């Protein structure tokens, strides 16, 4: 019998240290590649040297003769997959090549070095066909049926053309964002082992169960014969949200050496092909306003790319459907299907590039209307969510803008561009808004079991990708069950536990936390306050009827000071302020890190990140960290991060809205707007490199 006194909350909201912190800094938290397995083999992939065509011959004799080489896997000897419907994942089933650096085989060897050496000795010949690997505005475009996350492709309200012709002020802007690669610190890694028809994967993933379902289908086995283990993950930013071909390659190769584990770590350079990326975008935005600065028309037309072998349609203009009030609005998305790898999720897919364009355009329009950019946004604050016609469960964008202006010292800004110089530095300030929807993925289940000694086990398969989920979920469990955090034994990151949805779309806490609350409620209902050892319940994330009544979004505002060298045009960002209205903050410490990480990535998007493709050869040429820049510590100045106390009773039992992505949404625009204020030069094509600022 338990004699614990029940607490009435207090764990949620505390600045608890990461409970996985000591394990990580002492190196005892096993990442996928580090799980101890007996007698492993190492995989090194063979990748196509052409962009499109057919493999016509493979000479692996030199490789096979090398000591330590066990097998060279190619489409000529690879096992057949049960399901080849997903052409990104149906690898080595034919000699067809659909993009440069696509997997055409792999070497398995006793050591990594032997595998890698042997891979260089395999001679592959090809019949090459013409290809198209660069996004062009004037290329062949088509209209996808729907967008990522189920958003409609196009929307139209009112009569935009009529509204433009009668608008007092209009703006017509073209904005572009480049291809970007997620590049988590831990590359994609898999350890795959088959034993008597059972597959085990130690996998670096954002979702153990989603991987389990995918591989079960592809290899034609029962779900419960595939186990995926992922207790610690070194980041993903979306690239590990969906399984990619590297996972299938490891599992397929392991089938040929039944019983022996196969280890495959994608190298940093290989991370620039085949594990997803953010599509480049070409975005046209038109705004019309009346003489008071109220938007009368908004259009946002997007061109982006997908792969010929699988569609991914980023929802770039979706933010524009609800961000500001207007009676006349149109959004469209058109895709170019190219001979390129499949684009995928990268932190805030859609919102991040879309808000760069929208919030840059809003800054331009504010100036045209003669209004302060904050005032201009407040004037266009909507009453309800235009996309659904529903009221917001809570919308505190205005509070974020006002609070941020106060903290940042916005009133000291000189509104005229290029009007403030300190020594050789042109100084400017910029603002932009942020938003991110509250996604609620269905199906997660949580088990709660009383294990005696005042300990409650809480189990489900969710992956902590480094965000702090281990800690936040412990806090939620403590409050849901009504005990202290020390009484909770959290077990996650394994399909041996109940189903958990992907750590993506900032949805994890909403989905899993709701399941925990539901399980705790049922547990107390069944077993009362004094359970016996072994008492257990399992419950599922319940439907939230309030989603029929309210639109649910998080909001935020960014303020940036940019300094631009008057002669060399180097850009530095000494300070950034971010204020968020994202519901209840579960853990102040880890939440701050999420916001800061998002803002840092926004700064990176603004100034640094750009994957450059050589169209002739079809691959990213700056495929390493010497040439694909992300900021260093020395590039990040003061980060002032805070949030509004928001009490939203409708979103979920915690009152939380999801915080993983909102930090990157709009922050790049705030940087661009600050650079404009500093220099008078509007850069509409990211990243903002010094050569774009030379007059």
């Amino acid at each position, binding site marked *: 019998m338990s004699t614990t006194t029940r607490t009435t909350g207090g764990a949620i909201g505390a600045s608890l240290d990461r409970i996985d912190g000591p394990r990580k800094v002492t190196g005892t938290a096993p990442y996928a590649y580090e799980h101890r397995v007996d007698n492993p083999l190492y995989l090194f992939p063979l990748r196509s040297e052409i962009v499109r065509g057919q493999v016509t011959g493979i000479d692996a004799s030199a490789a096979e003769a090398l000591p330590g080489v066990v097998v060279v896997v190619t489409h000529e000897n690879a096992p057949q997959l049960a399901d080849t419907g997903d052409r990104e994942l149906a690898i080595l089933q034919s000699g067809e090549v659909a993009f440069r650096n696509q997997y055409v085989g792999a070497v398995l060897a006793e050591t990594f070095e032997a595998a890698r050496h042997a891979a260089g000795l395999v001679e592959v010949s090809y019949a090459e066909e013409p290809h198209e690997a660069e996004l062009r505005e004037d290329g062949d475009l088509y209209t996808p049926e729907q967008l990522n996350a189920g958003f409609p492709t196009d929307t139209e309200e009112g009569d935009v053309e009529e509204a433009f012709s009668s608008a007092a002020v209009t703006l017509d802007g073209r904005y572009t964002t480049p291809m970007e690669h997620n590049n988590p610190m831990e590359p994609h890694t898999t350890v795959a082992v088959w034993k008597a028809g059972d597959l085990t994967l130690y996998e670096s993933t954002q979702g153990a169960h989603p991987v389990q379902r995918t591989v079960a289908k592809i290899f034609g086995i029962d779900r419960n014969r595939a186990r995926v283990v992922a207790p610690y993950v070194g980041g993903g930013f979306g690239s590990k949200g969906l399984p990619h071909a590297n996972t299938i390659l490891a599992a397929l190769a392991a089938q040929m050496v039944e019983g022996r584990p196969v280890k495959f770590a994608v190298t940093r350079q290989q991370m620039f092909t085949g594990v997803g990326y953010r599509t480049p975008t070409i975005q046209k935005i038109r705004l019309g306003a009346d003489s008071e600065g109220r938007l009368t028309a908004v259009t946002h037309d997007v061109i982006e790319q997908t792969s010929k072998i699988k569609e991914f349609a980023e929802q770039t203009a979706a933010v524009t459907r609800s961000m500001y009030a207007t009676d006349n609005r149109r959004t469209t998305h058109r895709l170019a299907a190219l001979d390129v790898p499949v684009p995928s999720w990268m932190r805030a897919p859609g919102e991040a590039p879309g808000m760069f364009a929208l919030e840059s355009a809003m800054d331009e329009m504010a100036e045209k209307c003669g209004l302060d950019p904050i005032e201009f946004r407040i004037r266009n604050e909507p009453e309800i969510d235009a996309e659904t016609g529903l009221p917001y469960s809570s919308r505190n964008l205005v509070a974020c803008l006002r609070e941020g202006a106060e903290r940042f010292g916005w009133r000291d800004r000189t509104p005229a561009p290029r009007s403030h110089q300190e020594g050789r530095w042109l100084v400017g300030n910029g603002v932009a808004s942020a938003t991110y929807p509250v996604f609620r993925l269905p199906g997660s289940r949580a088990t709660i079991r009383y294990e005696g000694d005042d300990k409650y086990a809480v189990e489900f398969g969710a992956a902590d990708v480094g965000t702090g989920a281990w800690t936040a979920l412990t806090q939620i469990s403590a409050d849901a069950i009504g005990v202290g955090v020390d009484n909770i034994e959290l077990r996650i990151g394994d399909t041996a536990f109940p189903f958990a949805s992907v750590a993506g779309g900032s949805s994890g806490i909403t989905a899993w936390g709701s399941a925990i609350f539901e399980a705790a409620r049922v547990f107390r209902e069944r077993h009362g306050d004094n359970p016996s050892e072994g008492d257990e319940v399992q419950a599922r994330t319940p439907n939230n009827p309030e989603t029929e009544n309210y639109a649910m979004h998080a909001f935020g505002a960014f303020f940036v000071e940019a300094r631009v060298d008057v002669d060399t045009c180097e850009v530095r960002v000494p300070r950034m302020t971010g204020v968020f209205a994202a519901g209840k903050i579960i853990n102040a410490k880890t939440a701050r890190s999420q916001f800061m990480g998002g803002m840092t990535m926004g700064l990176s998007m603004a100034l640094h990140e750009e994957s450059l493709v050589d169209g002739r050869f079809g691959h990213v040429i700056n495929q390493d960290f010497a040439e694909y820049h992300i900021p260093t510590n*020395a590039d990040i100045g003061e980060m002032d991060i805070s949030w509004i106390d928001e009490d939203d009773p409708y979103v979920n039992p915690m009152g939380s809205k999801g915080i993983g992505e909102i930090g990157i949404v709009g922050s790049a625009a705030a940087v661009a707007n600050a650079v404009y204020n500093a220099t008078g030069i509007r850069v509409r094509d990211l990243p903002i490199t010094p050569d774009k600022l030379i007059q």
Partner: protein
Amino acid sequence: MQFLQPHSWREALEARAAHPGARPIFGGTDVMVDLNFGRKRPETVIDLTRVPEIREWNREDGLLRIGAGVTYTRAITELGNLLPGLAMASRTVGSPQIRNRGTIGGNLGSASPAGDALPPLYASHAVIEVASTRGTRRIPVGQFIIGPKRNVLEPDELIIAFIMPEAEGPQQYAKIGTRNAMVIAVCSFGLALHPESRSVGACIGSAGPTPIQPRDAENFIEDVIEEHDLWESRAEIPASALDRFGVLASEAAMPIDDVRGSADYRRHAVGVLARRTLTWAWNEHRGVAG
């Protein structure tokens, strides 16, 4: 792959003579990247880190003779007062880890036009000492580096040291990168004032196939200084002359477009850096802060 580890300079030269295709390695901060990227796969690697002679520096005939194996960190801590330009350049290299391992000899071995140690060597007319079992020769740095990633080292030769004068006047180094650390130069500029020989040494980095000494700019500014007797008077250099120095430097650059920056930007920025480094150095000469 064979890994040789000589323990003396003699052994090193013999190993090099016996394995002409071998790749010397010191800090490995370039060699290991090349290996990892599969660019080069030498049969033999000769590790020079155990050779005491090339890690030393000393004074010789009034000049500094600095072993090829002196790291950036040591150039900053041990040579900072003697060679301020080289120390400034060293501070811009990579990260602390890279500065602890990377050497100036390695920078000469790689001969990248973006090598940060190179412009200060050009600006002070450094001489490179190379040796083989056949003997020793000394080559001015501008003749040692002959193309992008190409130097005149024979297959049996090693770099033992470089020789340059202790600073006799202010020195400057400026580098443009698209971020604040861990960055390959978009372009750079090294400048040294030599009041005793009444000359100005300058060098453009990362805007041509090799580091480039802008001779017209050097000659022009030396003439201006002489004409106005500025070495002694320590008066300001006229603004128009600073501008002209920048223009001449910029004209000497031979940049290309690449992923780090456009040729036009580089040409512009070289002019800015030239003017800026000369202004800073001259202000120091005048005893004026900033």
